[in-house]
């Protein structure tokens, strides 16, 4: 594959207007663009070379030396390479517009809408409308993330100004026989808040409007105003509760890369272990919920018991059921000496029972029938809309896993771990072999991105995670200091070291942290302000890219502008009653998306 440098030579009309900044890490390149069109052209080239978009960050640097808003695109290639593209909005005619890459990477759309609400900057080629995260209760042009706005000023402005008219979604005239079915934002189960508006013809879902942003809590502004670099982990682990550890780990990595700190190997091992524990308990929860949605309550409750066992193991190890308060920039601490054998036997036993139960659900004709071809997301759609994580893997993008593509922590240093991970990602190709042995279903072709595929991937990943945990435990056992470096006594030393190294970092440097959580890749972009403050912290949860993908999986597939045709191929349709099942099989985070 061609390197990004040759891409720049090939595509940029003015290669001299592109400056390369010195690398901070061997796999990280950083370019400053002066010409927006070249930036867009380079992104088109990158898409063809199968780069993935990690995140879009906007910073308000109007008070700093560059005197402008800045847009940063972060991309990664399959060759473990990270590319940062920087562009300052210095065009005095359009100081609030940036070159958009949405035509190339459609998944950036939600991020762009959020940026429009929070900064008031919009893409050059399109009119934007607000309302992505700031709904009717907020006045127009609030721009909460401008650097000069304080929380008090924002609140005063919101309270003094009359609320906007609620932005009612457009009501175009539907063809005869079709109607709207609004659902939410408050739902009937114990689930999060978001609004769905179905366009239904009979029972078939023709289209779906998603209205998210109800849970917008202003997290990014809170990072800047209330937290410092060494306390921000507290907020990071509450961005999305079920990915607490993954989020805090990504945050910690960002701060550690900023401070260029090397961690002891044990810390990496423990972090990987907790990450896999989180993956296990969440996948088990989802499989249980899927079984429940298929009215197979017997299996659902047995699986829920397994989930509780892992959660209690978390509590034994760290003192918190959701793995909070263990991870902080510079290290990890456990609350007591762990019994490695007990961890191993619990994990082994739970996964063994779980695999059996998972197999039982899949073998039951009623369940299989319910899942097959329901909520299908084709490979090409997943690729186009940048689906990440397990959703992408279930659609056949089987190596879309940050643990392989951009290894971090223990995954970077231990080849064996990556080998284990690629054993699961190889399922589609080798579907006949490992799965047939265990009596798992055998497909004719690839994983086709339906509910069953996501179910299978979940079950398979639990097994992989258990294998990874066993490997990590063996590695720990061979080192006598497996506890000494993560005992609570070490915490002050770790923190002092962190503060010390942060002092040498220049202001307005940034660090990147990335983790493959159970839902998909999580990116943190942390920029240091004066002292130990955070100037900007951009959180990118995997749900941001997967929501549009879920919409596609639900609606009846048709080409743009096609009339409603009741005789369309049946396997591409989903009916209303499929929605809960599909939603569960994706299980996206509303909280992580809304920020």
């Amino acid at each position, binding site marked *: 594959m061609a390197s990004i440098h040759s891409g720049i030579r090939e595509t940029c009309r003015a290669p001299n207007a592109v400056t390369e900044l010195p690398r901070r890490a061997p796999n990280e390149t950083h370019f400053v663009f002066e010409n927006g069109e070249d930036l867009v052209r380079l992104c088109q080239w990158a898409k063809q070379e199968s780069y993935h978009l990690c995140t879009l960050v906007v910073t308000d640097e109007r008070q700093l030396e560059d005197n402008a808003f800045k847009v940063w695109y972060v991309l990664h290639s399959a060759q473990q390479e990270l590319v940062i593209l920087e562009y300052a909005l210095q065009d005095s005619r359009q100081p609030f517009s940036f070159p958009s890459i949405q035509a190339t990477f459609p998944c950036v759309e939600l991020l762009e809408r959020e940026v429009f609400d929070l900064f008031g900057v919009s893409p050059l080629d399109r009119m934007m409308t607000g309302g992505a*995260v700031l*709904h*009717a*209760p*907020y006045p127009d042009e609030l721009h*909460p993330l401008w650097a000069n706005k304080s*929380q008090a000023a924002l*609140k005063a402005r*919101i309270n003094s100004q009359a609320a906007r008219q*609620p932005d009612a979604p457009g009501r175009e005239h539907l063809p005869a026989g079709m109607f709207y079915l609004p659902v939410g*934002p*408050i739902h*009937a*189960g*114990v*689930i*999060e*808040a978001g609004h769905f508006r179905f366009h239904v013809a009979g029972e078939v879902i023709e289209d779906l409007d998603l209205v998210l*942003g*109800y*849970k*917008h*809590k*202003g*997290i990014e502004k*809170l990072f800047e*105003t209330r937290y410092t670099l060494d306390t921000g982990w507290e*907020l990071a682990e*509450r961005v999305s*509760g*079920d990915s607490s550890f993954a989020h805090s780990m990504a945050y910690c990595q960002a701060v550690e890369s900023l401070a260029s700190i090397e961690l002891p190997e044990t810390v990496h091992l423990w972090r990987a272990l907790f990450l896999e524990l989180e993956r296990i308990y969440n996948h088990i*929860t989802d499989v249980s919920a899927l079984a429940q949605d298929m009215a197979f309550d*017997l*299996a659902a*409750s*047995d699986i*829920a*018991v397994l*989930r*509780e066992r892992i959660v209690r193991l978390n*509590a034994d190890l760290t003192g918190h*059921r*959701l793995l*909070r308060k263990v991870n902080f920039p510079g290290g990890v601490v456990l609350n007591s000496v762990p019994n490695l054998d007990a961890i191993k036997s619990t994990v082994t036993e739970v996964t*063994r*029972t779980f*695999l*059996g139960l998972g197999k*039982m659900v899949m*073998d*039951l004709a009623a369940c299989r029938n319910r899942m097959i071809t329901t909520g299908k997301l084709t490979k090409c759609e997943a690729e186009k809309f940048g689906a990440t994580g397990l959703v992408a893997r279930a659609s056949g993008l089987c190596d879309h896993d940050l643990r392989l593509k951009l290894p971090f922590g223990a995954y970077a240093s231990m080849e064996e771990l990556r080998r*284990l991970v690629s054993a699961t990602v190889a399922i589609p190709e080798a579907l006949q072999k490992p799965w047939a*042995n*265990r*009596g798992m279903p055998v497909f004719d072709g690839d994983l086709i991105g339906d509910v069953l595929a996501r179910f299978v991937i979940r079950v398979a990943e639990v097994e992989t995670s*258990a*294998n990874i945990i*066993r490997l990590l435990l063996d590695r720990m056992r061979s080192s006598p200091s497996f506890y000494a470096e993560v005992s609570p006594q070490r915490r002050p030393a770790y923190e002092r070291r962190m503060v010390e190294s942060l002092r040498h970092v220049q202001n307005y440097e940034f660090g990147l942290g990335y983790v493959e959580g159970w839902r998909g890749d999580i990116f943190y972009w942390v920029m240091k302000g004066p002292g130990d403050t955070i100037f900007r912290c951009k959180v990118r949860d995997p749900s941001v890219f997967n929501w549009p993908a879920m919409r596609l999986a639900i609606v009846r597939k048709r080409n743009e502008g096609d009339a409603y045709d009741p005789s369309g191929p049946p396997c591409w349709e989903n009916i209303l009653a499929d929605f809960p099942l599909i939603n569960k099989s994706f299980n996206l985070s*509303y*909280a992580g998306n809304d920020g």
Partner: protein
Amino acid sequence: MDKAPVKKPSLIWLLVRRLLGVIVRKPLYSIPPPDARLDQPRSVFIRHLDCGSCNGCELELNALSNPIYDIERFGIRFEASPRHADVLAMTGPFTRNLTEAARLTLEAMPEPLIIAIGDCAMNGGVFRNSYAVTAGDARPDEIRQAIILEVPGCPPAPVDILKKLAELPPDLSGAAVAFPSYPPPLVIERSMSWRSTMPSR
């Protein structure tokens, strides 16, 4: 790694085990009630209301329904509609975007009662001071006044939630003043239980 074949438990065995549990009246997994008051007969229908949580509290609320905590054996149930609910379980720091929806949900209840689950719902937790939330005392009056119980924790463990729920009176009817509900008022005589409506023999 571990390549031993996984045996599938047979459906029959699961059923038999469950049945045995019913016959000998011994639950398979469930913990003993964490509070003696939970043994009283009670009927509490709870409706969950998400006001911007991080979804940690939802995880623990969901865990209450698993066979270990098995909240329904105490007569507590999660309901799908506010119309049928005795009380709302509110999570999250009360985001501005959800204010209207939360108000409407409360209005749809027969009596406005709220349990605040988690630190966020009590005082905003880590999200306090954000421009986007109206935590604690800044919340609308009707929400603040409807709170009858607070469960601290981030998130509170299922056992903690159960212990707190034990403080609820076994019958919530008549516990609060009627809330001006929107027309037509769905007033059901609360004192009239289904027994008194049956013709006497």
